[in-house]
């Protein structure tokens, strides 16, 4: 169930990268996000009926909170992809966008959707990978137009967010280290549910430092006050339907 939910955006983006005609890309884009939405809704229903869903050797799981995230991401993704068609069509008619960039736009759009869905349904280290992926996928979207300000915003965004996320990884590694001390060298040491069960036995000093690093790290990505400087520029310079999608997750 969860793996289908993740595979659909990937396939959609691959199709968007390869197709030749604008019409085809738009149709694929819309169907892809509609299927994602339906699967997301299905997952939500299943989680509320049966409780936590776990698949694929414990690597993917969905509890009530991830159901909530999946619902938001797939819903906003669907509406944004609908709006994109009109918006990008307008850009193309006015010549500020060509077919190559359109393909890139839709392809990256769906990859972005994939990474945000992945954020909701993975473990603590997978979370980091997925969040870093959101940065990497969205930075090229900003340089679709080669204005001076867009390039500058993209560089700022990429650098600030990557540094932030590096701190978050350090915090995550410390957390994993604390977990390994308690649980031993085991796959379980990166699962939210298992971590929560033994959280009271972690080394408090280690967790304090880890918390600071993680707060700064993911705080940068969310745009918490001292680390927010990338945010307004990024939102004003990216193609318009896309930023609406941005805060949806954060």
């Amino acid at each position, binding site marked *: 169930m969860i793996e289908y939910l993740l595979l659909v955006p990937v396939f959609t983006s691959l199709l968007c990268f390869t197709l030749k005609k604008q019409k085809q890309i738009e149709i694929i884009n819309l169907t892809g996000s509609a299927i994602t939405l339906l699967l997301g809704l299905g997952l939500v229903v299943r989680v509320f009926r049966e409780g936590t869903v776990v698949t694929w050797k414990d690597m993917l799981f969905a509890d009530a909170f991830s159901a909530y995230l999946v619902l938001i991401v797939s819903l906003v993704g669907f509406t944004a992809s609908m709006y994109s068609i009109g918006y990008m069509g307008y850009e193309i008619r006015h010549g500020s966008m060509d077919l190559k960039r359109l393909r890139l736009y839709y392809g990256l759009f769906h990859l972005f959707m994939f990474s945000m869905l992945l954020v909701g349904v993975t473990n603590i*280290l997978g979370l980091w*990978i997925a969040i870093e992926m959101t940065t990497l996928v969205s930075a090229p979207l900003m340089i679709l137009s080669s204005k*001076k300000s867009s*390039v500058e915003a993209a560089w700022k965004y*990429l*650098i600030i967010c990557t540094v932030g996320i590096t*701190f978050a990884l*350090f915090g995550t590694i410390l957390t994993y280290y604390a977990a390994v001390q308690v649980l031993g060298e085991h796959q379980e040491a*990166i699962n939210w549910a298992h971590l929560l069960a033994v959280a009271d036995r972690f080394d408090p*000093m280690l967790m304090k430092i880890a918390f600071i690093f993680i707060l700064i790290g993911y705080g940068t990505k969310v745009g918490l006050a001292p680390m927010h400087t990338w945010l307004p520029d990024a939102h004003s310079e990216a193609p318009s339907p896309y930023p609406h999608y941005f805060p949806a997750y954060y």
Partner: protein
Amino acid sequence: MAVSIYSIGYVKEYFGKKDIGYLGLLFNLFILSMILVSTFMVLGSRRLYTCVRAFQFQSLLIACVAGIVAYSTGRSDIYIVALLTLIVKAVIIPYLFFYIISELKIKREIELFVNISPSLLIGGMLVVISYYLARSINHDTGLSSYALSASMSLLLIGLFIMISRKKAILQMLGILIMENGLFLGAISLTYGMPLLIELGIFFDILVGALIMGVLIFRINRTFETIDTDRLTTLME
């Protein structure tokens, strides 16, 4: 200087505790201090090529650490990780740097916001700070504590390189040094993470470096320079 402070710490520690294999410990400490030396080479050099070479050397050493960890734990997946480090960080990414440098005909000299000697001093201070920080959070006094302090120093010095150098390409180098520090911490504290996760992180780093490379080209084309203090369009 900082390195010597560091090694005094090592020696002290060695005399305090004798149950770890003498040669193995010494070898590991040697590698760790060489990693720090390579970071200081990046800090103390004005030549772009030397910086990239130092980074390459550092990645090579870190791959060595991963190899040693793999050998001592006997886990085959860490060998894969060590090999990946070697290929991605010591071959592909330095090659990418050299490609960017030769394509863009970047001036060989680095421009700095903070001069060489204060940079070195600040670097030394950062090493001392991370040494004490690592001491306070890690209670076992084995190798992992040194590795933790070395990894924190790499993290902090990488950050310092990013903020004190003007060229976009050195900001990229700073980020990669930070990533190296993280990897060192992860591999020596927890003997590596699950393989799938490790692969994901490598993939992210590689793609990140590629995207930064593309962006540097784009910056060069739109601004006709890669000095980041010219990026001021959005400052009002």
